[in-house]
């Protein structure tokens, strides 16, 4: 009864067959992904609207220039390109798993599913590092009261506004109280416990000359919307990656248990694959909107 080739005069809509030549589950996965695309689209467009409406939005190359174990080195785009390549590569292993599924090759599906899961976990680890780096912040900002302070990037504070001119920065240093000077000096010199203790005993003048001896860049605080949009949208994407990893682990378990061999096809792997590729697709746009432009 099963047909292998599609006759040229097929009447798709006469009933008795799927008009889209696809199973219910697969078609519905596509419509779910379409609606999810609108959710992400709405978030990104909202972000774009606010970004267009202010004069002092952060320069991404300025914010995202750190790399693990590289200290204060200025490496714009480096870490995010690593994350992008991890996700592209895990997309390739996913499509290879789907391909092995078509061939009913259980061992091949298992191998590529494991690689895909590792890719997803690697991406999540990168994101955890980046969030920690921003939330524990090391950037110095000029506050409204005319003093300098270290501000983290959170949903309530954004140290990435317009850059402060050099003499304005020097004037602000003179007005900054001792404990704020000490914490700035400790941060600039990679404050371990010993450094923190040392700077606390120094006088204001010593601290100011210590801070001036290192290359200090100071900004005004920027629009507070930055943190909310960044953590909201990358968080929502990260949540998709996380649930994708969970789905892939379930699929790997079902493959190992032989469920798909009993069923006679590996279509579930295809559906999980659609979701996983969608996560990669969204990252392409998050990468564009937050890091590139």
């Amino acid at each position: 009864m099963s047909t292998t080739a599609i006759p040229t005069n097929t009447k798709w809509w006469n009933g008795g067959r799927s008009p889209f030549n696809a199973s219910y589950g697969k078609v519905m996965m596509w419509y779910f992904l379409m609606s999810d695309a609108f959710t992400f689209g709405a978030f990104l467009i909202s972000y774009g609207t606010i970004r267009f409406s202010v004069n002092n939005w952060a320069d991404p190359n300025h914010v995202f220039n750190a790399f693990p174990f590289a200290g204060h080195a200025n490496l714009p785009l480096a870490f995010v390109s690593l994350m992008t390549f991890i996700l592209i590569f895990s997309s390739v292993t996913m499509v290879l798993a789907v391909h092995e599924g078509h061939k009913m090759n259980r061992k091949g599906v298992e191998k590529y599913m494991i690689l895909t899961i590792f890719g997803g976990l690697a991406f999540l680890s990168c994101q955890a590092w980046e969030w920690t780096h921003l939330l524990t912040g090391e950037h110095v900002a000029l506050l409204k009261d005319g003093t300098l302070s270290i501000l983290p990037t959170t949903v309530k504070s954004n140290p990435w506004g317009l850059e402060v001119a050099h003499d304005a920065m020097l004037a602000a240093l003179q007005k900054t109280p001792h404990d704020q000077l000490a914490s700035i000096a400790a941060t600039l010199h990679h404050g371990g416990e010993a450094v923190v203790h040392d700077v606390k005993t120094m006088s204001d003048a010593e601290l100011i000359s210590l801070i001036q001896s290192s290359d200090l860049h100071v900004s005004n605080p920027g629009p507070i919307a930055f943190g909310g949009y960044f953590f909201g949208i990358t968080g929502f994407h990260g949540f998709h990656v996380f649930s994708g990893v969970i789905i892939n682990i379930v699929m790997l378990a079902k493959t190992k248990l032989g469920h798909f061999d009993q069923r006679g096809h590996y279509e579930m792997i295809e559906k999980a694959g659609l979701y996983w590729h969608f996560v990669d697709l969204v990252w392409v746009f998050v990468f564009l909107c937050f890091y590139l432009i």
Partner: protein
Amino acid sequence: MSSAATSADISLAPEHGSGTKRIWKTFWLLSVLTVIELGIGLTIYNIHKGANPNPTLVLAFKGMVCILTLAKAYYIVSIFMHLGDEIRNMIMTIVVPLCLFIWFITAFLWDGNSWKILRNTNAGSRPAQTEQHQPAAIEKGEKP
């Protein structure tokens, strides 16, 4: 359920070349497009470092990255997600609604830009502000 994908009402699409060649080709294509995007990103960074960044040039480069991103999206959806192998009616039910984004993006970015003009020209009912309101904790100089 158990025979959904192999029942008589669904004909499996023919395998393309039955090899993984097309997948790896797409992978290299995506990688090259990403590297070009990164190159443009660094170019924009270097333009911004200069004394007088040319806004038209920056906008042109940003437009180029947007086009490259759309190309990447096309390859992911068409090859990796196999949408290109589905029948035309199904492709249309997914792609046509997404055309709403054309209006969505244009209208909202236009609106954002209009807000910026109001902010900078006193044309609104409020005095112009160059910076957004900061929460009280930061005004007082405390760490929030």
